[in-house]
């Protein structure tokens, strides 16, 4: 299975836009980059969380694409990646040759502030918001690991430096460690600049079979692994520095692709908050447990380091319109692995991994996690 085309709009705030308005152009551009026509699309999966009923069909109606099966996918932050997972399976089973994946979200509809969570959950009723969850991880991390608050700031500094190179990033202004530490508190010890911005965005991917990829003869990436996990209930003490769902998803993806973390050139991981990146270094096996802060201090995860993490700017700088992020991450892998990433190109990148996870549910570390591994075709 291959991704033969990708497109996204610059993430940001588009309060006047509809979901169809955000996404329709990315569908057209992704088809064009693959050398395909809207009539070639055999099935569609659309990831979103707050678009309301039939979001995918509204987008397709604007493009006069109809009749083909359309499935709308909500998996919180993993929605776009989950849509890709189902496209991967549909093509893998030999049922389809061309499947369109859309990830789209408009968070500006909520004004600002924290993501509205579902109040059926007992922790949400008690006041849980996503920044608080990650802030509690951060406090524990600083307690257990050889790390300081400035290490959390360094993650944001790196993200902004990368985002400055990405025309599609929501936040393109570089920041310093002092500016990150001095920003207003969101959930102690996290400051504003350690949190992803709220915003809007859309990304589309064209997933094709090997037969179509050969016929097109264009740059493409091979999806070597597509893994989706859900969280497992544990009502007892849980190690908040070891996100089991992400570690399990990554392990399965490495096994399916027949590679290890040391083989990766580029990683797009779920840095919704700066602490998350340090924790996911460990969960994805980019370093031994305990060494995450060392990676960021030594510059091992920026250009010139052992593996470039979030060259796009990541969720912290590129932005995090929930349902769009998973698709946008794989769009970044498409550009990186086909040598089209411009100023933020990781030289000679051949192998990449994308990781999204999320959703706050009591008793789970996260609700959903998707990991994709891709290689230059």
């Amino acid at each position: 299975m291959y991704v033969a085309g990708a497109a996204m709009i610059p993430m940001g705030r588009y309060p006047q836009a509809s979901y169809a308005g955000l996404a329709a152009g990315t569908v057209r551009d992704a088809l064009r980059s693959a050398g395909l026509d809207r009539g070639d699309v055999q099935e569609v999966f659309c990831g979103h969380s707050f678009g309301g009923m039939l979001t995918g069909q509204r987008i397709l109606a604007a493009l006069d694409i109809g009749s083909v099966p359309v499935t709308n996918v909500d998996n919180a932050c993993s929605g776009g990646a989950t849509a890709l997972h189902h496209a991967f399976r549909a093509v893998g089973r030999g049922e389809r040759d061309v499947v369109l994946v859309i990830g789209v979200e408009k968070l500006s509809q909520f004004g600002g502030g924290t993501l509205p969570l579902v109040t059926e959950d007992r922790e949400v009723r008690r006041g849980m918001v996503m920044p608080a969850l990650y802030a509690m991880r951060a406090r524990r991390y600083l307690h257990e690991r050889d790390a300081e608050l400035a290490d959390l700031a360094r993650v944001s500094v790196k993200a902004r430096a990368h985002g400055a190179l990405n025309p599609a990033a929501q936040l393109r202004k570089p920041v310093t460690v002092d500016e990150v530490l001095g920003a207003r508190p969101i959930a102690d010890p996290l400051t504003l600049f350690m949190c992803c911005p709220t915003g809007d965005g859309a990304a589309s991917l064209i997933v094709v079979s090997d037969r179509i990829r050969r016929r097109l003869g264009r740059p493409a990436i091979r999806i070597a692994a597509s893994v989706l996990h859900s969280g497992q209930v544990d009502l007892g003490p849980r190690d908040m520095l070891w996100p089991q769902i992400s570690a399990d998803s990554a392990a399965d993806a490495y096994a399916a692709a027949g590679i290890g973390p040391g083989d990766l050139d580029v990683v797009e991981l779920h840095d919704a908050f700066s602490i998350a990146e340090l924790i996911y270094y460990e969960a994805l096996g980019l370093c031994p447990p305990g060494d995450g802060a060392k990676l960021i201090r030594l510059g091992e995860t920026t250009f010139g380091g052992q593996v470039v993490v979030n060259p796009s700017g990541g969720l912290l700088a590129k932005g995090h319109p929930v349902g769009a992020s998973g698709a946008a991450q794989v769009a970044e892998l498409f550009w990186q692995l086909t040598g089209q990433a411009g100023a933020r190109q990781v030289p000679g990148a051949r192998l990449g991994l994308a990781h999204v996870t999320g959703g706050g549910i009591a008793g789970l570390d996260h609700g959903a996690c998707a990991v994709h591994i891709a290689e230059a075709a």
Partner: protein
Amino acid sequence: MSEDLAGRGADRPEFVGGRLYTWSTVYVSASRPVPYTLGYVDLDDGLRVLARLDGDPGALRMDGPVRLVPGPDELTFAPLGHQ
């Protein structure tokens, strides 16, 4: 579960104790007035609960002992010795 704990604790505040695994004071929230402080409390019987933390956050300690107290939410804890 939480309802049971709250009911017992309201009658006998010293009944439920635990240790504070981590906490955060929240300054931006979609769900309620800020600031407020939340933490995960590891109860002596092996469960972990998300609880509201009462009093001065400066008095909180990692892995420090806490006890259930009457408070603004059904589950509110405070450091041991806090009145």
